[in-house]
Each structure stands twice: as C-alpha cells, then as structure tokens.
C-alpha cells in the first residue's frame, strides 16, 4: 500500500458551516492532517450544532430527525460532538482549541501557520479583518503558504458585506426561481444546501491545485472563492439559454430540462405506500425516459396500454408536448405497485428509475450495504455505536478509509500543544487557565 496522496500535508482549518467543514473532510480523506481550530468562547453558527451549544432537552423530543434528532432524544452534555447535521463532517480530522482573539492566541496561530501548507476560512468578510489574519500576515509566518478565503460573494464588490448562508446565495444566483413545483411559488421551496456542498468540493480542489503548483514552483498563493459564483455551474443550462436566446427559465418541478431532446416523461409518481406522508411512509418512484428507445421499453413494462400507442409519443418532441397527459397516466399506472418492485422491473428493462428513498431505508439498501457506505463507529462521547459515512471514494492502492471517527471538540489539544508546539506541562496549564485550551464550549455562551 502506498501512503495517502496528501500525507505530509497539513491544513490549518479556520472554516465553518457546511462549506468549510465539508471541504476539509475531503482533504482529510485523502490523507492531509487537518487541524480544525475551535474556540470555547466563539460559537460558529451551523458548524457543530444548531441552534447553539446548549440545546434545550424539549427541543430534542420533536422535529425533523436531521435537525433535532439527537442520540436517545437527549442533547446530553456536549451535543456539538454528535449533532446529526454535522457529525459526519469531522471524520479523519483533528480538533484543537485556541482563542485567536487574544494576542497570544494569534501568535500561536502564527506558529501553526508556519507549520502548515494551507489555511482556509469561509466566514463573512470582516471576521478575518478584525482578527488581523490576512494573506500578508500568513506569508510572514511562511513564505509559500496557500491561503483560501470563501465568503458568500467574495471579498470585493457591493455584495461583499452581505451576510448569507448557501440557501440565500442560491436565491441570488437564480436557483429559487429555477427549482420547485411547476407553476408553484418559491416560498414553498424547502431550504437546501447545494451551494455549500459544491463550494466545499471546490475549496478542496482549489487547495490541491495550489499544492500542485507549489510543489512545481515553490510558490504559494491566495485563492478567493465567491460561493455565489461557484454555485453558478449548477444552473449553467439556464444561463446558456439566456445567453444564447434571451430566454428566462422557470421551475418545471421534476421534469427534465431536456424534455424536447427525448427526456420525457420524467417525474416522481406515487406507489403503494404503507402509510401517509405525515409519518414518512409515502412511497414514490422516480422515472426518467432518456430516449425514444427507453420510451419503447417503458411501454413494454406497462403492457403497452392503448394511450401509449399514440405514434406522436414515439418522438421526444411528441412526448415533450404531451407531458401533462404522460404524468397523469404514469401516476395511475405506478400507484398499483410497490416502489422496489417497479425499481427492479424498470431497471431490468433499461429504464432509469429508482425509489425516492426515505432516509430510514438507506442503511437497508443492498447498494449501500454492498459498498459499505455507512460504517459502525463509536465516538469519544459515550452515545453508543452508530453507522457513520465513509469517504466518498477509495484509492485501492493507497492507504485511506476511516483513520479516525468524527473528532470531538478539542480532542487533539494534547497533540497540537505538546507534540506540535512543544509546550511544557506548566505552560499547558497556563494556556488552559487563560481560556485557550478547552474540551467544551464556555458556559458563558
């Protein structure tokens, strides 16, 4: 086995929320040593838990599993170590605490930067400025450092001061108008975090590209990502349609933007369900006809009903024009089947289809099991064994996988202070007393 591609690379992680936090999982999965800096006196919103470090017990009793679902419905002592929204973003990392608002804290940060290949942050513009952390300051610590900043709208321009989460900047880039039900209002859209995650993947990519360049030339650099601009790739076809033709696209529900190119019908249709939507027991099948040939295959699976024999439907243009009728007829047909049954039948005939899988069914899925996507692990906190995600991909000839389960707040203070910085016992105690070293958020928050 070869060592991991990023073994020996150290990343000083000043990031937060999803974009920063997920980006460094990708780097850690490839072998980088990620040092996640945390501060017992500073609560980074949507980074380790919501709404704050102390979650009222009543809040853990109800609500969507992904927002308030805590182990045994109990927030416990340190929910920031095992919040369902965030815990999966901490595998393979190290966590240490340091109050970088204090002069000595900033000096220590400088020493760590000098030992690091790259530093990243994605807070609102002003946060780093207030702390005096700039590319120039980091270069004084290490000449060839790589520094990446990823605020919502970048560091220049009239929107640079905007406070935003990924959901808001998706609105600005057009996604709220482009997604959602056909003819529906955008205020029925669910909050999603697509922009956060694409930014995360590309933060990791940008840092690796900069490492590649540094290894070639000895030079570091400064990287600026405006997350709004980064999200644009997800809406590329709509921009191209406007650029080409001056056309302004709107939401079309689950239909394909390629309907006229043969991709119709395309939709989500009801199946036999063990219960209703209010208990999450409603079942649905997603189907995309991707060509004239798969339309023929779908007809066969349906037993070629009379309505499907209309020769107009043999072409993409014909099916695109008949989408209302097709959706109605398909929904009538699917309603008599189990989703898993249709999944197997349609795929056996070469038609793209799958259940809209509710989260409670994921761990039982044969694909998820065959690929060992969720691996039983214990965390530092005694909350029992649960299955947590493994890295997205494996490198068969390189070491990898899960080297460490999701890291607890301040779990690696010993490693960072004693091994990396070489502080004495006496100094360690002093830094603890002065608030730098902690394993729990301050009661003052």
């Amino acid at each position, binding site marked *: 086995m070869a060592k991991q591609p990023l073994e020996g690379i150290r990343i000083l992680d000043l990031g937060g929320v999803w974009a920063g936090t997920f980006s460094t999982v990708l780097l850690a999965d490839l072998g980088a040593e990620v040092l996640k800096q945390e501060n017992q006196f500073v609560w980074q919103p949507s980074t380790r838990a919501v709404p704050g470090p102390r979650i009222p017990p009543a809040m853990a009793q109800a609500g969507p599993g992904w927002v308030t*679902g805590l182990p045994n419905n109990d927030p416990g002592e340190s929910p920031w170590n095992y919040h369902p929204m965030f815990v999966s973003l901490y595998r393979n990392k190290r966590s240490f605490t340091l109050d970088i608002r204090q002069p000595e804290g900033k000096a220590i940060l400088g020493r760590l930067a000098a030992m690091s290949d790259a530093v990243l942050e994605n807070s609102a513009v002003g946060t780093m400025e207030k702390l005096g952390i700039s590319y120039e300051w980091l270069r004084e610590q290490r000449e060839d450092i790589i520094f990446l900043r990823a605020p919502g709208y970048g560091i220049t321009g009239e929107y640079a001061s905007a406070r935003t989460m990924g959901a808001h900047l998706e609105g600005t880039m057009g996604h709220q108008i*482009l997604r959602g039900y056909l003819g529906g209002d955008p205020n029925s859209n669910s909050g999603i975090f697509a922009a956060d995650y694409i930014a995360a993947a590309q933060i990791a*990519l940008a840092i690796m590209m900069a490492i590649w360049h540094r290894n070639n030339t000895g030079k570091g650099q400064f990287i600026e990502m405006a997350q709004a601009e980064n999200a644009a790739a997800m809406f590329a*076809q709509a921009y191209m349609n406007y650029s080409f033709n001056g056309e302004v696209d709107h939401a079309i529900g*689950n239909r394909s*933007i390629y309907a006229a190119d043969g991709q119709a019908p395309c939709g989500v249709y009801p199946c036999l369900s063990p219960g209703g939507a*209010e208990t999450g027991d409603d079942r649905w099948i997603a189907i995309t006809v991707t060509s004239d040939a798969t339309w023929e295959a779908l007809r066969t699976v349906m037993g070629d009903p009379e309505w499907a024999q209309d020769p107009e439907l043999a072409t993409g243009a014909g099916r695109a024009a008949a989408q209302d009728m097709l959706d109605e007829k398909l929904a009538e047909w699917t309603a008599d089947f189990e989703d898993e049954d249709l999944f197997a039948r349609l795929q056996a005939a070469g038609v793209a289809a799958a259940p809209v899988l509710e989260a409670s069914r994921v*761990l039982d899925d044969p694909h998820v099991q065959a*690929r060992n996507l969720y691996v039983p692990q214990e965390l530092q906190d005694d909350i029992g064994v649960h299955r947590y995600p493994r890295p997205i991909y494996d490198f068969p000839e390189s070491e990898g996988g899960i080297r460490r389960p999701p890291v607890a707040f301040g779990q690696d203070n010993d490693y960072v202070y004693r091994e990396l910085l070489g502080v004495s016992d006496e100094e360690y105690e002093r830094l603890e007393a002065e608030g730098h070293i902690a394993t729990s958020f301050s009661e003052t928050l």
Partner: protein
Amino acid sequence: MSGPLNDVRVLDLTQHIAGPYATKLFADFGADVIKIERPGGDPSRRLGPYKGGEPHPEKSGTFFYFNTNKRSVALDLKEERGREAFWRLLERADMVVESFRPGVMDSLGLGWDEIHARRGDVPLISITNFGQESPYRDYKGSDLVLYAFAGEMFSTGLLEREPVKMYGTAALVQSGSAAATAMMGALMAGRYQGVGQQVDFSIADSHLVGVDRRHATVIGYQYSGRKSLRSPGAAVGMLNGVFPCQDGWVDLQGGGARFSNAREFLGYPDWMEDEKWDDPAIQMNPEAVEEFNAFFYVWLLEHTKREIWEAARKVRFLCGPLFTIDEVFEDPNFRARGFWEMADHAELGEVEIPGRPFLMSETPWELRRPAPLLGEHTAEVLGEAGYDAGAINELAAAGVAEVR
C-alpha cells in the same frame, strides 16, 4: 500566467454532465484535456438549449458550458486502429477519466489491466451511476433518478405533494465537483509516488455519504428514530422566510437575535415605536406575528428585492433576493467582478458564459478556447503523438478518425 495544471494531460472519455464537468475544471485550470469523442460525438451535443432553438451538435449550450478549454479528438475506439491511437495518446498522458457503463472499457479492450500494464503510473478515474461493484451496477440513472435514490430528495417539497428535485442537472454537477477531487488525489499519487490505480467513483455514493444533506437525515434517524419529512407549507416566521415583494421575492432571515435590528431594517416605522417589539420573545407570540406581518407585507410591496437586500446588508440580516436568470446575468456586481467571460466560437460567434469558479492569484482560471467542434483537434493531437499527415488521412478515410 497560466493555470496550475499546465503540466497535466488528461485523456477524457467522459460523456454527458458529471464527468465532463470534472474534466472541465481541470481544463479551465490549465490541463491539456483531450476529449476523445465517439463517432457522432458526446451525446450531450444533442442536449439543449440550442442557439436559435434548433437542435445542432455544435450549438448545444449544455455541451458548450461543460467542455470549454478541451480539445476534441473524434476516434472510433471499436476499431483496432482507433485503440492503437488511444495507446499512442496514453504514452503522453498523466491520467485517464471515463464514464462508460461498467464493463464497457473492458469490452473495448481498454480495461484497467491493459492501461496499467502500459503505464503503471497513470490512474484511471471511472465515473458511473452506481459504481463498478454494486447490485445496481448496470442500472440506468439520470439527475432525477440518482438524486431521488441517493440525495436528500424525499424531504424536499411540500408534505401533501410529491418530493421535488433541484434544478436541471445540479445534483450531477455537485458529483462532478467531488469527482474532480478524486482526479486530483489520483494524479498526485501517480506523479509523486508512481502509483497508478483505478478509482471507482459512484455518483450515487457521492450523494449518499457526501455532497449535500443525505448523511444528516440518515444519522438523525439512527439517533432519534425520527424521520425527516417534507414541510406542510411555507415556513414563515417574523422576518424569517421567503416573502413576496414589489418585484418578486426575497429570502430573509432576520429573526431570532437579529430581530433587534428590525426597526433600522424597516426604516424606523411608526408602528414599531411600541416598546413591546424590544422583547425577543414576542417573535413566538402568534398574535404579534400576525400584527407584525399586517404591516410588514405592506412594507414588502412598497420595496423592491434590491432595496430590501440593501437594507438587510446594512443590518446584517441573512438575505438573498430571488433573482431571475436575466437579473443574474445583468447584475452589476458580478459584471464588475468580472464573472462572465466572452468566448469566440467558430459556429456561434461571441458567446457569454459563466466564468471562473474561484480566483487563484498565481495560476488563474483562463478561457483559452471555447468548447471544441467535433474532431476539431484530431489532426493536431494525433500529429503530436507522432502520426504523420498521411497516416492521419488514412485513419480518416477508413472512418476510424474524424478530421475537421
């Protein structure tokens, strides 16, 4: 200055969206991406929107956006001499990326063992719907189908309606971004350690354990036994939600602790003079919410989304105007930042497209060439690999290569 990957050559056998987006990221940052297209070209040349509306393989907006900066070599890999050309190109390459169905590379005689035997240091990134080894490995996918199965679609939308997806191919673009990280890691293992390997990248897996929220609903259910359901209706609290305004909609988060700035945000209206609005707990009082909204909805209709966003920026509310695509395109901020790029294309003339995904100070994103015409670089690339003009003409005459 040029991109950071200007010493990297990629043989790109990907098609459609996810793979081409991953290789576009490489090409846009300087890599020499040689896109090997089958006779007739990447099927995404047959996906709209088309310039002028009429389908044409050189006028696809999808193909254009996802294939900038690449060189196109049209080669029939089902022909012995086509494969021979592939092996010649491999001698000069740093990596191979493909997105065929599992088994197709083997059946073409271009499988991993063959590649590895010739170039031990060259990685192969295989991007597929469900991976090389899975009970679903031969299953078909689409943006909708993959997002439905692997992404967090079930909880997206309204409770009484069907789950609803994101725009277009957003889920595939997310996966393509993650695939680019796999390419970069494999490239490093190849260049620095001489280790070539096949990386099995599954689009489904990238959603199941990575990009976007699926992991959170799976963990939340394990922890609490509670599912994540769709919402019964538009969730609107005091200053929290998606609101209609004079010229469209705004997404606003000015509740909670931020509510203390509400007066400043609204321009100190008379109706907020009452001290009761100073108590943050008032946001939980349904009658007060109703009273507040009776004024607030009138205020919204008197203001444009830009005015509302500007006011929100001053008081640090989380906010985003819901721009339509023409508004994004014409927006002065992104224009001033230089986000849009002009490409000059042989068939389409000047075309404006979204530009850099991030700015690198030393090795910037660069639009060196627009998306290639089918086979535009066949002669050039085969020439670099040692084919003389006569040999290239012979391949073209035999229908093995398409030369433009």
